[in-house]
C-alpha cells in the first residue's frame, strides 16, 4: 500500500512538473515554422465563439485536415463566454485557448489583462489587415494583443415596401420619425452595438460633431457637458420610436412588421436572411450622417494551454481562403484588405465615404451609462 502511494505521488509530481513547464519555445522570438511545429506537438486548440456555428465547424474540419491539429469549437453565449474566461483568470491553466472578443467586453477584458500578447508581431499575415484594426477596437487601445478577423458595419436597415425615401441626414431622419411614429426602432445601447451606433451618431449630430473626442485617453468632462441636449431629444421623441432589447430583436421586429426602419449590423442581417428569419427584400445603407463600424477580434488567453496552436488557428482564420469562405458562407466582411469582394449588403462606396470610427472607449462607456440613466429610467 505504501509503495503504491509513493509511486502515485511520484507520478503526480512528474505530471505537475511537465504541466507547469509551459511551451518549450518563446513565442515572441521563435520563427513561424517553429511555432507551427510546437502547435502540432500540442495537438489541439479550444476555441470559444458565440456565432457562425456553421462556418466554424467547417473551418475546424479544414484546420484539422491542413495541420493535423484538432480544433474544439464551442459556440456559447457572449456573456457566458466572457464570464467563464474571467472566472478562470486566476487558474494556472484555463480551459479556453482562443476566443472571439467583441462589444463592450473588449474594454472589460483589456482592463483585466486577460490576453497574451502582443501577437501582431508574431502572425505572418498581420500586415494584410488594416493597421487601425490592430490598434483600436470599440474605442479601446488593444495594442496588437487582439487579432482582427472580420469587420462589420452598422447601417440603416429598412423595408423598401414601406420606406420610400430613406433618410440620409439627421434632419431627414428626424422628419421621417415624426411622419411615421413608432416605425423606427433601435436597440437599447446597453444591450447591443447597433443601438450604441445610433446614439453615437445622435451625439455627433446634436452636439457639434465627434472629432473633438478623438485621441482622448480619458473622459474630458467639459466635452460631455452639453450631452444633456441629446438626452432631452431622446426623451422628447421616445414615444415616436421603438426601443428594442438586442441587435437581433431589432431585425426580428422588422420581420414581424412592427417597425420598418432600424439600425443593424450588416453581418447580423445577412445571417438572419440566410436562415429565413428576415424577408429577402430588406435593404441596407450607411447614411451620409455616418454610422460606426468595427469588427471582432480573436485573442489568446494568458493562461491558455495551447498557445502555439491558438496562434496557428488565428493565422488560419486570417488566411485568404478562410476569409473568403467565411464571407461566402455567412456574409461576414473580411478583415483582410487584399480580397476582392462582391455581393455585400453595404456598398464599398458607402463604407469608404460614410462609415465613421467610434469615439474613444471612455466616452462610449459614459454614453451607455448616461443613456440608461437619463432616457431609459425616466
Amino acid at each position, binding site marked *: 500500500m505504501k509503495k503504491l502511494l509513493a509511486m502515485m505521488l511520484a507520478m503526480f509530481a512528474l505530471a505537475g512538473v511537465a504541466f507547469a513547464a509551459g511551451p518549450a519555445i518563446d513565442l515572441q522570438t521563435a520563427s513561424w515554422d517553429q511555432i507551427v511545429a510546437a502547435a502540432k506537438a500540442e495537438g489541439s486548440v479550444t476555441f470559444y465563439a458565440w*456565432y457562425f456555428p456553421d462556418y466554424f465547424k467547417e473551418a475546424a474540419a479544414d484546420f484539422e485536415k491542413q495541420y493535423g491539429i484538432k480544433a*474544439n469549437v464551442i*459556440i*456559447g453565449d457572449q456573456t457566458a463566454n466572457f464570464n467563464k474566461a474571467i*472566472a478562470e483568470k486566476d487558474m494556472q491553466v484555463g480551459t*479556453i485557448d482562443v476566443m472571439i472578443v467583441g462589444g463592450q467586453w473588449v474594454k472589460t477584458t483589456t482592463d483585466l489583462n486577460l490576453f497574451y500578447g502582443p501577437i501582431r508581431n508574431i502572425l505572418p499575415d498581420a500586415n494584410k489587415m488594416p493597421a487601425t484594426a490592430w490598434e483600436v477596437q470599440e474605442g479601446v487601445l488593444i495594442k496588437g494583443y487582439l487579432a482582427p478577423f472580420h469587420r462589420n458595419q452598422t447601417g440603416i436597415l429598412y423595408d423598401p415596401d414601406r420606406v420610400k425615401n430613406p433618410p440620409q441626414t439627421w434632419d431627414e431622419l428626424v422628419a421621417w420619425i415624426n411622419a411615421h411614429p413608432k416605425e423606427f426602432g433601435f436597440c437599447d445601447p446597453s444591450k447591443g452595438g447597433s443601438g450604441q451606433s445610433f446614439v453615437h451618431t445622435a451625439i455627433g449630430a446634436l452636439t457639434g460633431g465627434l472629432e473633438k473626442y478623438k485621441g482622448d485617453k480619458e473622459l474630458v468632462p467639459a466635452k460631455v457637458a452639453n450631452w444633456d441636449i441629446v438626452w432631452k431629444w431622446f426623451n422628447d421623441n421616445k414615444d415616436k420610436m421603438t426601443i428594442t432589447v*438586442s441587435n437581433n430583436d431589432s431585425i426580428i421586429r422588422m420581420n*414581424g412588421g412592427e417597425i420598418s426602419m432600424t439600425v443593424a449590423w450588416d453581418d447580423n442581417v445577412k445571417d438572419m436572411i440566410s436562415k*429565413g428569419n*428576415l424577408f429577402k427584400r430588406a435593404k441596407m445603407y450607411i447614411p451620409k450622417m455616418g454610422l460606426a463600424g468595427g469588427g471582432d477580434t480573436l485573442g489568446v488567453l494568458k493562461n491558455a494551454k495551447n498557445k502555439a496552436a491558438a496562434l496557428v488557428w488565428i493565422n488560419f482564420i486570417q488566411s485568404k481562403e478562410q476569409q473568403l469562405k467565411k464571407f461566402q458562407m455567412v456574409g461576414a466582411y473580411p478583415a483582410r484588405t487584399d480580397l476582392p469582394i462582391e455581393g455585400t449588403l453595404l456598398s464599398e462606396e458607402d463604407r469608404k465615404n460614410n462609415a465613421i470610427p467610434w469615439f474613444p472607449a471612455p466616452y462610449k462607456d459614459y454614453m451607455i451609462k448616461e443613456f440608461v440613466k437619463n432616457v431609459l429610467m425616466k
Partner: protein
Amino acid sequence: MAELAIAKKQKTPWYVSQARRKRSFAILLTTFFIVMQIVWVGLPIFMTVLWSLVDPNHPWSYPNILPEKLSWGQWVYVFKYTNIIRALKTSYTIAPFAVLLSFILSLPTAYVLGRKQIPGKKFFQTIVLLPIIMPGMVVALFLSRVFTAFGLAQSFIGLVLAHTLMGLPYMIRVLTTSFEAIPQDIIDAAENLGANTFTKIKDIFLPMVRPGLLAGMVFAFTTSIEEFNLTFIIGTPTFETIPTILYSFLGYNFIRTNASVVALIMMIPNIVMLFAVENILKSDYLSASLGKL
C-alpha cells in the same frame, strides 16, 4: 292553468337547481382551464414547432400569418453544425445520476425536516432553498473556483454534483411536505407490531412519500436537463449539454428558428416523461392511510 304553472315551478327542488348550478359552474371552470392551457401552453408550442420548420429560403415575415414554406432545413442545420447528438447523450446521462444523488441526499434531510423537531428548523428549511434563490451565473462563477480547487471541474462527477446541487432544493421541499403528511398513528401501530427501522422505511415511509418522491424526481430531472450556467462554466469544453447549445441561439445572438429546434429537442422528451410519471403518480397509500379509500 295557473295551478299547473305553479305545480311545474314547484317541481324543481332547491337542491336539484343548486346541483345544476354547481355542475354548470364546474363545466365553465373546466372550459376556461382548457382554453387557458391551449393559449398559454399549446399556442407557444405550436409556434415553436412552426418556427422550427420555416424553410431557410422562405422567411416567415409580416404579414403572413403562417410560414410560406415548411421544410426540415432548420433541423438539418442544427444536426449538421452543432454537437447536438453528443449533447443529448451527455444531458440524458447526467440527469439520472443527478436525480439518484438528489434522492439519496434529500431523503434523510427531508425526514428530519418533516418529522423531527430540531433547533433552527426554520433556518435550515430556508437555506436548503439557497441554490435556486441565488442567480445561476453567480452560483456558477463561485462554484467553479471551488470545483477547480478540488479538481472536479471538467469532470463527469463534478457536473453530476453541480446538477444535484440545483435539484436538491426541489426534492427536499417536496419530500419534507410528504413526510409531514404521514400520520403518526400508522408508525406507532407498526412499532407496536414489532417493525424495525428497515421495515418502517420499506413498508411505511417509502410507499407513502412516493407521490412526493416522483414529483421531486420530475423537478430534479427537468432542472438537470435545463441547467445552463453551471454546465457552461464548469463543464465546457469537455462536456456540452442541450442548454449550452440552446443558449448559443437563445442568448445574445437570438436566432428564433434554430432556437426553436433545440428547444423542441429539449422539451419533447420531458413532456413525454411528465405524462408517464403522471400515470405512475398515485396517492393510494396516503389516501388509504387517512381512511379515504
